């Protein structure tokens, strides 16, 4: 393979394969997989595009999962850092997005466990007393506040499955890869969550 050097850093594989084809597409049209290939070749703009593409959906997912407003950005940033740092271990079996959400979910779970160890007074007696502060969210409408409160009461895995499906639009296969469960179990969790939450948006 011949490599074409652009500037001091970027090294482009110059052949007729899919790797080279990925360089011919504009950054915003490139798939996540193409961007990862570019990043692996040293193209930091590709990493920048991945962050721009996924940071807001990831932030919304973390916020709805119960992360506090102040915590969301730190968790998302750490998830991207870990993902890029360990990019060599991503083999493309799951999509980059699924992989990123998996890392973020694990980071949030760890943060929640650490937080729970430090809290000595139980909050409200619920099993999923996350750091979320749904009622305090300025500008949130009544339905959203009620929904956030009810989401916080769902068992953790049920809530994560529900959000990845309803909020992020992921298929059950991708959800199972992100959360380490099976597609069948994810489907059951989703339907149980729907059954429980339906009445709060009536």
């Amino acid at each position, binding site marked *: 393979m011949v490599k074409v050097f652009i500037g001091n850093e970027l090294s482009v594989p110059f052949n007729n394969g899919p790797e080279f084809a990925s360089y011919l597409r504009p950054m915003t049209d490139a798939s996540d997989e193409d961007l990862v290939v570019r990043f692996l070749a040293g193209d930091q703009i590709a990493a920048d595009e991945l962050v721009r593409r996924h940071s807001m959906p990831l932030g*919304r997912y973390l*916020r709805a999962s119960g992360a506090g407003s102040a915590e969301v950005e730190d968790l998302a940033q750490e998830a991207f850092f870990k993902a890029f740092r360990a990019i*060599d271990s991503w083999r493309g079996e799951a999509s980059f997005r699924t992989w990123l959400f998996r890392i973020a979910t694990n980071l949030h779970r760890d943060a929640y466990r650490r937080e729970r160890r430090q809290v000595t007074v139980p909050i409200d007696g619920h099993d999923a007393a996350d750091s979320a502060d749904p009622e305090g969210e300025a500008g949130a409408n009544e339905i959203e506040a009620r929904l956030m409160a009810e989401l916080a009461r769902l068992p953790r895995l049920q809530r994560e499955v529900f959000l990845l499906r309803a909020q992020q639009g992921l298929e059950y296969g991708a959800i199972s890869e992100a959360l380490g469960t099976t597609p069948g179990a994810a489907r059951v969790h989703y339907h149980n969550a729907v059954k429980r939450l339906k009445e709060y948006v*009536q």
Partner: protein
Amino acid sequence: MTHCERLSERMPAVGNGQAAWSAEELAHLAQCADCAAEWRLVRAVAGLGAQPAIDPAAMSARVLTRLASAPREIPVVSLAARRRRWVWSLAAAAALLLAVQFVPTGRSDRGARPAGVLSELDDLASSELETVLAELSADETTGDQRLDDLSTDELEQVLQDWES
């Protein structure tokens, strides 16, 4: 799959703007209270947390700065991890072969898979699992089917049993 189930499957995609309702689906939503309630929920959740306090450009700059001072991690699979992976593969293979032994094929002499056979595998040491595998592979006299003997449908059945 019922009409309601089909709609339910499509709700996340429509709620996220990846698809749109057809006229027929809209008509169903207008007259089915259950689907309408689920759609209200999915739509509300799709817009939940719509404005997280994130500045993508600033975040990207911070991540790239951190990456510049932290080399990429090269995946190294430890000997212990490889051994664990090998034991699990062996356990899965042995369990699959056991399941094949009991797959229902319509013949009267073949029973259903006995309850507890899979949990018992968890208690086996790797050497014992190896023995189970060896015995199953060597046993040609019982008349039981092997994986190679199964039709596509029977293999599908085995996999479905496993899924469930």
